[in-house]
C-alpha cells in the first residue's frame, strides 16, 4: 500500500499543502481532482522526490517510480528508441532493454516510429512515447501530472485509450492529477477531491460504489460547485481558461 500521512508544504509564507493524508490502493488508479494551482503538482513532486516536503510521512514510495509529465520531456537528439533505452540503462542489460522496447512498441503499434526523433513526431505522438516510457520502466508505480492537458479532444480520447490499453496489460498503481472531471471518472478507480489553497483532502470517492456514472459526475460537480460558489470571481476566471 502506498500511503502519505500529514504532508505539509509551504513556499515561503504561502501554505500549499496542509496536512494531507491519503492511501493509494495498489494496482488501481487514483485520480486527484482539484482546482488549478491548488498544489497538486507539488504533491506529485514530493512523491517523486523532486521537491522536499516540510513535514509528514511518505510510505511505500522508496522503490522505482515512473512519471508521466505534462510535457513529453523527450531528449531532442535521441530517437524514440534511444529515449526509451536511456531510462532502462542500469535497470536491465542492453539486450533485454532492446527486447523490451521492441515488445512494447509492437504492443502499441508504434514500431515504425522507433527511429524517429521527437521533432519528427506530432505532439500527441510524443505524449504517447512519454506514456510508453513510464510503462516500459520497471516500476510498479506511475505518477501522472495532467498528461492529457495540452491535447485536443480527439487526441485526448486516443491517448486515454492508449493509457487504458497499457494499464490493462501491466497492472500498475497509478496516481494521476487532473482538473478534468470526465478524465478522472474515465480513468480512476478512486477519486480524491482537493480543496483550494491551502490544499486539504475534501472527499474521497471509490468509483465501484457508484454504478451510475452520471450520478457520480453530478456529485463531483457539486463538490466543485461549492467551491465555485464561494469564489465566484475566481470561478469565472477559471471557466474562461
Amino acid at each position: 500500500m502506498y500511503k502519505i500521512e500529514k504532508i505539509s508544504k509551504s513556499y515561503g509564507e504561502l501554505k500549499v499543502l496542509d496536512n494531507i493524508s491519503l492511501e493509494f490502493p495498489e494496482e488501481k488508479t487514483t485520480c486527484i481532482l482539484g482546482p488549478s494551482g491548488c498544489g497538486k503538482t507539488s504533491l506529485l513532486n514530493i512523491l517523486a522526490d523532486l521537491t522536499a516536503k516540510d513535514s509528514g510521512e511518505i510510505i511505500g514510495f522508496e522503490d522505482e517510480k515512473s512519471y508521466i509529465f505534462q510535457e513529453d520531456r523527450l531528449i531532442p537528439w535521441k530517437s524514440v528508441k534511444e529515449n526509451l533505452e536511456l531510462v532502462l540503462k542500469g535497470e536491465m542489460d542492453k539486450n533485454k532493454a532492446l527486447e523490451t522496447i521492441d515488445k512494447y512498441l509492437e504492443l502499441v503499434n508504434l514500431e515504425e516510429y522507433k527511429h524517429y526523433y521527437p521533432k519528427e513526431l506530432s505532439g500527441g505522438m510524443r505524449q504517447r512515447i512519454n506514456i510508453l516510457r513510464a510503462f516500459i520502466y520497471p516500476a510498479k508505480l506511475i505518477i501522472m501530472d495532467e498528461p492529457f492537458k495540452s491535447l485536443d479532444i480527439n487526441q485526448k480520447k486516443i491517448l486515454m485509450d492508449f493509457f487504458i490499453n497499457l494499464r490493462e496489460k501491466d497492472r500498475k498503481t497509478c496516481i494521476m492529477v487532473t482538473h478534468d472531471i470526465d478524465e478522472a471518472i474515465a480513468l480512476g478507480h478512486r477519486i480524491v477531491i482537493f480543496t483550494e489553497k491551502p490544499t486539504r483532502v475534501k472527499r474521497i470517492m471509490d468509483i465501484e460504489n457508484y454504478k451510475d456514472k452520471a450520478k457520480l459526475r453530478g456529485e463531483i460537480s457539486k463538490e466543485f460547485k461549492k467551491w465555485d460558489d464561494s469564489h465566484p470571481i475566481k470561478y469565472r476566471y477559471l471557466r474562461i481558461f
Partner: protein
Amino acid sequence: MKKSTLRDREISLSSKLLIIIFWIIISRIIDNDIILPTITSTVNGLGKIISNPNFFNIIGYSILRSLFGFIISLSIAIVMGVLSRFSKFIYNLMVPFVNFLSSTPTIAIIILALIWLNNEIVPLFVGFIMVFPILYETILKSMLNIDNKVLEMAKVYNVNRMNIIKEIYLPSIFIGLSNILSSAMGINLKMVIAGEVLSQPRYAIGTNLQLQKIYLNTSGVFAWIIIILAIGKLYEYLMKGLVLCIKSKRYLSPMEN
C-alpha cells in the same frame, strides 16, 4: 533547396572572380610589385616558396602548432566548462579570468608572453588567449541551456550521473561546439601565425611572412596568404567532416557505440 544552393555557389564564385578581376586591374594601374604584386609575380612567389626545401617543415610546424594549441584550448575549455557548470566556486573563479582574456587588448598579453615565454610556446599561447574564452563560454552556455525538465526526468527515472553526463551533457556540448568549431579553428590559425610573426620560431609561416616583409617582397607575402587561406579551408572541411561523422554515428547507428 538544391536550386538555391547552386545559386549561392554561383554568387560566391562570381564574387571570387570579381576580386581577381579587381586585383588584375588595380595591379596593372599601380604597376608596382612592392605595393600590389600582379597575379604572375604572386604565382612566381608561390612557386619559390613551395620549392624551398624547408617548405613542408615550415607549414608542418605551423599546422602542428595550431592543431596542438587548439586541442589544448579545447580540452581545457571542456574541463573548466564542465567544472564551472557543477561548481559555483570554480565558475566564480573563472569569471575574472575569462573577463581579463576577453577585454584586455590581445597585443598587450602577447607582449607579456614574449617576455615570459619560450618563442616556440608564444604562438600556442596567443591562439589560446583568443580561442579559450570563446570555447569556454560556448561549452558553459550549452550546458546551462539544457532543459531543467529533461534533467528532472532523468532523475525520476534513476538515470545515473555517468549516463546523464554522457547522454545529455556531452551531446549538448557537442551541438553547441559544432556551430563554432570551424570558425574557432580559423581564428586560432590566424592568431598562431600572428604569434609566430612576433616570436620568430625557426620553422613557421609567421617567421617567413616577416622575412618577406623585411625584403619588401610583397608577392611573397601574397603567396603566403594564399597558402594560409588554403590551410584554413582545409581545416574547415576537416571540421565539417568530423562534425558530420560524429553526428551520423550518433544519429544513425547510436546503439552500436
